């Protein structure tokens, strides 16, 4: 059977060759930049990082690789008993689980509002405004927010004092520091979801709404049974894309709180960055490997769930 199936394919090949010249070595020259950068700077380091995580490598060992000892899973075991690492993992989890729905809800609300008969010029204006925080430097934004939330100099507490509320020291209070960063991130990121969801909303065929109208559906029913199902691919994309990004948050706490107070805003990425700064390369590698595994698993899980329903 296999033979009879292969024969026609073999016969066809020469004719293909005439129409499309086999330029495969030229093609490899074209893709070579990617192949080199991928292997040298991404795939290689990814594997090296995995290897590193089983050693006691430190910054001082870069010049002298012979000083590196294999320590097996010691780094991983230490990871699970390290209070700061556990706190960082928990903070990251809380951050992703709260920021994600908040961001998507805001993005969806803005997209629906923009799609509800707003004229083109003002719609473009709103879209521009909402998208602005997303394209600007996190470091710059974080510095600005730190100033806005300063208990003495910041306008937020000054306004609160006006209406008789004694505002907290937002960023140095364990109870408010992480929530503030969550709100700031949602504020910064929802414009992206808005653009994606707005494009998806505009792609929904009008006939579907007309059919729903004929069936006597109310506005909420139309939203639930036409809009939401049609938005599913876009929502799935926003969820996966944003959760990968949110799971790596670090610049915000780095600038605003340095992970404090008492580790209340230390994220997984910030903890890895700090371990790298302290020279513990093996340990940082183990933490990075765990973070990567979680991120990949999370993305795959979301795709699974999204595809099934």
């Amino acid at each position, binding site marked *: 059977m296999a033979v009879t199936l292969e024969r026609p394919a073999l016969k066809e090949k020469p004719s293909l060759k005439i129409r499309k010249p086999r330029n495969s070595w030229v093609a490899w020259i*074209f893709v070579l930049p990617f192949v080199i950068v991928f292997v040298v700077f991404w795939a290689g380091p990814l594997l090296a990082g995995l290897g590193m995580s089983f050693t006691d490598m430190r910054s001082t060992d870069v010049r002298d690789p012979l000083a590196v000892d294999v320590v097996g899973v010691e780094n991983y075991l230490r990871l699970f008993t390290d209070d700061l690492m556990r706190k960082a993992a928990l903070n990251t989890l809380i951050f992703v689980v709260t920021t994600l729905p908040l961001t998507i809800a805001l993005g969806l609300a803005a997209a629906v509002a923009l799609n509800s*008969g707003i004229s083109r010029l003002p719609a473009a204006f709103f879209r521009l405004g909402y998208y602005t925080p997303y394209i600007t430097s996190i470091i710059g934004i974080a510095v*600005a927010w730190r100033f*806005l939330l300063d208990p003495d100099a910041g306008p937020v507490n000054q306004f609160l004092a006006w209406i008789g509320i004694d505002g907290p020291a937002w960023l140095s209070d364990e109870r408010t520091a992480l929530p503030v960063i969550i709100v700031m991130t949602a504020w910064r990121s929802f414009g992206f979801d808005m653009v994606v969801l707005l494009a998806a909303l505009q792609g929904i065929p009008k006939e579907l709404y007309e059919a729903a109208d004929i069936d006597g559906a109310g506005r909420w029913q139309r939203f639930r049974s036409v809009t939401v199902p049609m938005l599913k691919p876009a929502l799935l994309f926003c969820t996966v894309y944003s959760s990968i990004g949110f799971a790596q948050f670090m610049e915000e706490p780095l600038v605003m709180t340095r992970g404090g107070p008492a580790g209340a805003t230390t994220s997984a990425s910030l903890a890895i960055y700090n371990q790298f700064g302290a020279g513990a390369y093996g340990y940082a590698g183990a933490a990075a490997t765990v973070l990567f595994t979680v991120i990949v698993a999370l993305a795959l899980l979301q795709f699974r769930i999204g595809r099934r329903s």
Partner: protein
Amino acid sequence: MKRRASSFKADSGREPRSAFGRSRLAYALLTAGLLVVVFPFVWTMLASFKPEGEIRQNPPTLLPAEWTTSNYTGLFERMNMGTAFLNSAIVAIALVVANLLLCSMVGYAFAKLRFRFRNTLFGLVMVQMMVPAIVVMVPQFVLIAKLGLVNTFLGIVLPFIVAPLGIFMMRQFIADIPDELIQAARVDGAREFRIFFSIVLPLCRPALATLGLITFMTSWNNFLWPAVVAQSEDMYTLPVALAIFSNAQATQYGLLIAGAVVVVAPILLLFLFLQRYFVQGIASTGLK
């Protein structure tokens, strides 16, 4: 602008009454939301022109009672902001040039050339897009150290010279260029490089504009990798300089927010004038 304004009129004229009421609510909500989004920018920008004393004054002023640029001059004198600005510009421009050329080359091969492992390789482009920078940071740094590129522009730039998102964008765009055009050139005996440079690349101009902007923005805002590679003040990029300054001078708000404005403003200006390309890029790559 004129065309848009007229369609604005036509649209609102066509709206039935109930829909107009509904869109009035939408306008109100959108305006309130916009104020919340824009407030931090406006307040910070205005405050950066106030003297330190007025910044801390209670009750606060919205507009500076006394306009001053002393925060900005102090910034350039005290934290070497001019050098950081220049470094950021050098890195961003180098990355734009590299990505425009390399991403379109690679994208062309994926879109129009046939070779073994093409799909596998394209899968790897997607894989790289998923790899978080923090995960490979340590071994990447060790590699850069072994290559002797710590504290150099080359070290800051190299891992990002051919970004997977750019490859993806260019492949999508080049795939839409008709095959006949390329076939005709091949029949005429043109080599692949000629075809690429004289037929494909000129047709890619709109996509290249978007890619250039996105690359510039990403590079300008990038913090983690430059913070790892740049080790002395003369190599810091703007976000690195600002983050370090912010940790050292926690309460010098005048200088700090002026620094934030210097980091944010160039991208903001680019965005205001060229927003079409930004949004196009997000919409076209995000969903396909």
